[in-house]
């Protein structure tokens, strides 16, 4: 451990408490959207374009004749159902170009999967059959698939915008400094990397149920979403149903990874049609539908250049991105690359910085947040480029990193692009990872193999990431033109019997907030974690919140719970002092007891205080009855977790097959509330990053058809492919919040892809291979080996 840990009041905080969520989920009691029984519900069926780009004319007549069909609509039929188009909440520049995005396209379909008509039927099966009966006539337009070609504007996705370029966003604090650094550099590297598109593939497909109460005008919306609160606001904005008449509930949600951080056509359609038809309306996505209907992640082409002095100390970084937006802007599509825009210098002290990103429309499914959202892309580029620089300078990849680390005494560190890194201590994490993996021995073994002419090439790849979590200080979001704040709300109520209810604005879907928030309360109030109930994900129960994404929940939402507990304790102290007839300063609070200093027999447990607060028979003059507190916490800064990841691979020169032999990760997310949960987040995160490196790709053909639409074609790894992970951690608390926590949900995914790809390139470097596009399939690796060999002849 590298730093002092904030002492916890109890031993609960930091313990491996088993999750409260588990018994229900392990016994089949978890209720996901599709599990809900709703009498009389109608089912939606979406007619989706099978052509990437076409003028469509749609005839829903034949579907209306099909058995069980209640209604069917084209995009034109529904024009009056909308108060506003589907929302994009992040207009990143003043002049950003955004096409109007209707829930059902009218006139032109712009990607395979674009909704062109909707049917409503008495059963799931009838809806599915009716979809087939709708006649769609396609007048084909040319598809725009390749990102670089799209940026050239030869064929337009949206004729009326006049360009495929939605925006260019720049961040170059000092252009002269960058120019000078490159002019004076002893070494430069210039690399081009491709971030393939990925399918998030949460195991639970999306789903929505809307139950109307026609006479009261209220609507209850059950959705498989990460963002019930944001969804409520956006449903009101798109449909015109008054916000106070909408209640959104996210029941058990089977994973999200960013893909359920959105406002989807099916959600607003279900509400609009429940209003129109006066009956419950529901929809559950099918898996192969999800591949085109749910947002995809990544999709960038990155140019990164480094300038360095003779010793390999980096003096400038220059980045040019093209970001594939897809056909429309979903909720935060244009902002995703910007979440990485400030991090292309990685963990290195680089004084000159230039970043620019152009967002480009293509005739493909829209992209948006996928685990890491902008930060995996940034980390990938800088960490691959650092390896290229190590080769250029002729030093070991670990050494090039050490020479450039932001020094520990520089924190809080003001970065060239304008952030203040809260805390960091990078050397120990790297040292620990190198030690765990046995770096020296591995390099010796690698040398032996190379000498012997072995075709089983050993490779070791390092990646060292930093991310910005704890989204976010509302003022900073304002400066980025984001359409919301970054605060989080919490209420803590001590009930008359001493049990505690916590209301949180976060919306967990696998992260275990019920457990972790209970631990925070147990720590602060000195109660049993089993005596704490955490309520969430229902906008009527938890009216204030900004939901769960961007590794924000603990650092922002958990901190709100912490502060609410402090307020409860403060009020309880006043009551206890009053009843014990002592001054507040004479009370000590620990283990749930207010104890009069120096009088061991005079004490009052917090449960008794809660009962007195409920009775209100004898409270201090003017005090409101009840023991509860609400806090809305707006963080003063982001948090900056970091970590060292090392992958060890063996690459077979004959077949191109890559075997991931070992994976070591030393992460630092500040103080840990529950290491069991932290490790689980890291494991799952790593596998998603490894999967980007080795297996997954949303591959499109030249006509804009997705070639990997099913789980049979899109290679989500199973246990058989997954490595086992060797983890450790360092602890560098964040000074941004009282618990010193940082966030860990995306760390693994951010660190993993560059570690694996650096390992593969390291393995093949004697053959002259310097880059391979992801995913590094046997065919790609084999082709890269062959090309390198040919080039050397």
């Amino acid at each position: 451990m590298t730093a002092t840990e904030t002492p916890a009041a109890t031993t609960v905080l930091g313990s491996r408490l088993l999750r409260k969520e588990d018994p229900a989920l392990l016994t089949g009691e978890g209720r996901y959207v599709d599990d809900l029984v709703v009498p009389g519900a109608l089912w939606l069926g979406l007619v989706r374009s099978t052509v990437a780009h076409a003028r469509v004319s749609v005839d829903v007549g034949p579907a209306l004749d099909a058995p069980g069909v209640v209604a069917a609509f084209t995009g034109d039929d529904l024009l009056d159902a909308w108060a506003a188009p589907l929302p994009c909440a992040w207009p990143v520049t003043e002049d950003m170009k955004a096409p109007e995005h209707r829930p059902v396209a009218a006139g032109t379909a712009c990607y395979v999967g674009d909704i062109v008509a909707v049917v409503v039927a008495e059963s799931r099966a009838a809806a599915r059959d009716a979809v087939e009966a709708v006649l769609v006539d396609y007048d084909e337009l040319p598809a725009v698939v390749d990102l670089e070609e799209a940026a050239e504007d030869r064929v337009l996705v949206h004729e009326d915008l006049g360009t495929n370029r939605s925006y260019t966003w720049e961040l170059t604090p000092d252009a002269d400094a960058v120019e000078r650094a490159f002019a004076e550099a002893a070494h430069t590297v210039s690399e081009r990397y491709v971030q393939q598109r990925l399918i998030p593939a949460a195991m639970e497909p999306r789903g929505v149920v809307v139950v109307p109460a026609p006479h009261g005008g209220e609507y209850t919306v059950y959705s498989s979403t990460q963002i019930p609160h944001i969804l409520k606001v956006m449903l009101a904005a798109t449909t015109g149903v008054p916000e106070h008449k909408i209640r959104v509930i996210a029941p058990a949600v089977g994973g999200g990874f960013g893909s359920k951080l959105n406002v989807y056509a099916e959600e607003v359609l279900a509400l609009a049609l429940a209003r129109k038809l006066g009956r419950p309306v529901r929809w559950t996505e099918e898996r192969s539908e999800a591949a085109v209907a749910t947002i995809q992640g990544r999709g960038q082409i990155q140019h990164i250049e480094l300038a360095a002095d003779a010793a390999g100390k980096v003096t400038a970084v220059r980045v040019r991105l093209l970001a594939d937006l897809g056909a429309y802007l979903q909720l935060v599509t244009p902002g995703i690359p910007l979440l990485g825009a400030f991090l292309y210098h990685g963990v290195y002290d680089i004084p000159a910085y230039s970043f620019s990103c152009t967002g480009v429309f293509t005739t493909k499914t829209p992209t948006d947040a996928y685990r890491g959202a902008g930060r995996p892309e940034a980390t990938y580029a800088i960490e691959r480029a650092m390896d290229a620089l190590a080769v250029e300078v002729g030093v070991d990849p670990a050494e090039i990193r050490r020479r450039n680390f932001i020094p520990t005494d520089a924190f809080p560190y003001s970065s060239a692009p304008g952030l203040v890194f809260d805390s960091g201590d990078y050397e120990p994490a790297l040292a620990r990872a190198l030690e765990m993996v046995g770096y020296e021995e591995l390099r010796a073994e690698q040398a032996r193999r190379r000498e012997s002419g072995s075709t089983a090439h050993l490779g070791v790849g390092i990646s060292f990431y930093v991310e910005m979590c704890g989204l976010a200080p509302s003022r900073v979001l304002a400066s980025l033109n984001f359409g919301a704040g970054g605060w989080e709300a919490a209420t803590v109520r001590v009930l008359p019997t001493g049990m505690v209810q916590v209301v949180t604005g976060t919306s967990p879907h696998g992260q275990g907030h019920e457990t972790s928030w209970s631990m925070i309360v147990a720590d602060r109030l000195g109660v049993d974690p089993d005596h704490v109930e955490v309520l969430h994900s229902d906008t009527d129960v938890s009216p204030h919140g900004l939901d769960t994404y961007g590794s924000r929940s603990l650092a922002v939402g958990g901190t709100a719970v912490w502060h609410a507990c402090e307020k409860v304790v403060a009020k309880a102290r006043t009551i206890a002092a009053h009843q014990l007839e002592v001054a507040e300063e004479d009370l000590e609070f620990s283990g749930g007891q207010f104890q009069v200093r120096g009088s061991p027999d005079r004490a009052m447990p917090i449960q008794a205080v809660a009962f007195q607060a409920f009775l209100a028979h004898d409270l201090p003059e003017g005090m409101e009855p009840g023991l509860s507190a609400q806090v809305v916490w707006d963080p003063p800064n982001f948090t900056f977790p970091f970590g060292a990841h090392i992958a060890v691979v063996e690459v077979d020169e004959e077949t191109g097959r890559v075997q991931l032999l070992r994976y070591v990760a030393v992460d630092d997310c500040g103080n840990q509330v529950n290491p069991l949960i932290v490790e689980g987040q890291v494991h799952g995160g790593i596998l998603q990053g490894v999967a980007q490196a080795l297996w997954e790709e949303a591959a499109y053909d030249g006509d804009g058809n997705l070639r990997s639409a099913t789980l049979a074609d899109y290679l989500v790894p199973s246990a058989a492919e997954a490595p086992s992970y060797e983890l450790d951690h360092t602890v560098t608390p964040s000074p941004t919040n009282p618990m010193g926590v940082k966030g860990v949900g995306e760390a693994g995914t951010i660190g993993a892809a560059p570690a694996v790809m650096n390992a593969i390139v390291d393995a093949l470097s004697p053959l002259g291979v310097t880059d391979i596009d992801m995913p590094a399939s046997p065919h790609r690796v084999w082709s890269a080996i062959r090309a390198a060999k040919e080039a050397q002849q």
Partner: protein
Amino acid sequence: MKVAVTVNGTKQEHEVEPRTLLVHYLREVVGLTGTNIGCDTSSCGACTVLLDGQSVKSCTVLAVQADGAEITTIEGLASDGQLHPMQEAFRQHHGLQCGYCTPGMVMAAVSLLDENPAPTEAEVREGLEGNLCRCTGYHNIVKAVLAAAEGAAS
């Protein structure tokens, strides 16, 4: 068509359409929604149940094909309020996060140990190949299954 099965020890008899899949029968007719659906290509294993003691993906079986069979779903595993040792092992080792793959994963793991009571780590990984989890990275699932095997042996 008529289908008569025993689900978690209770006899069930219903008229179903011939095309009804076992998973839909269990979820929508019998009302046991613990068994989940994660795909439409029999790739994910979220729907795994035990059919006469053997694990099957219930989206690959027609309800009528199960006629006369004994079926165990995730709801039938715990008894007298006590988690089954496999469920307990998943809990102890944090082998679940969102829980969506969990019912299928647990059923597949139960059946795996039935066939091979003392598997190696590699055998566990191979044995669970048909069940996808997007959350856990499998590490703790594998640990849980090995621990359950050890617990049963001791």
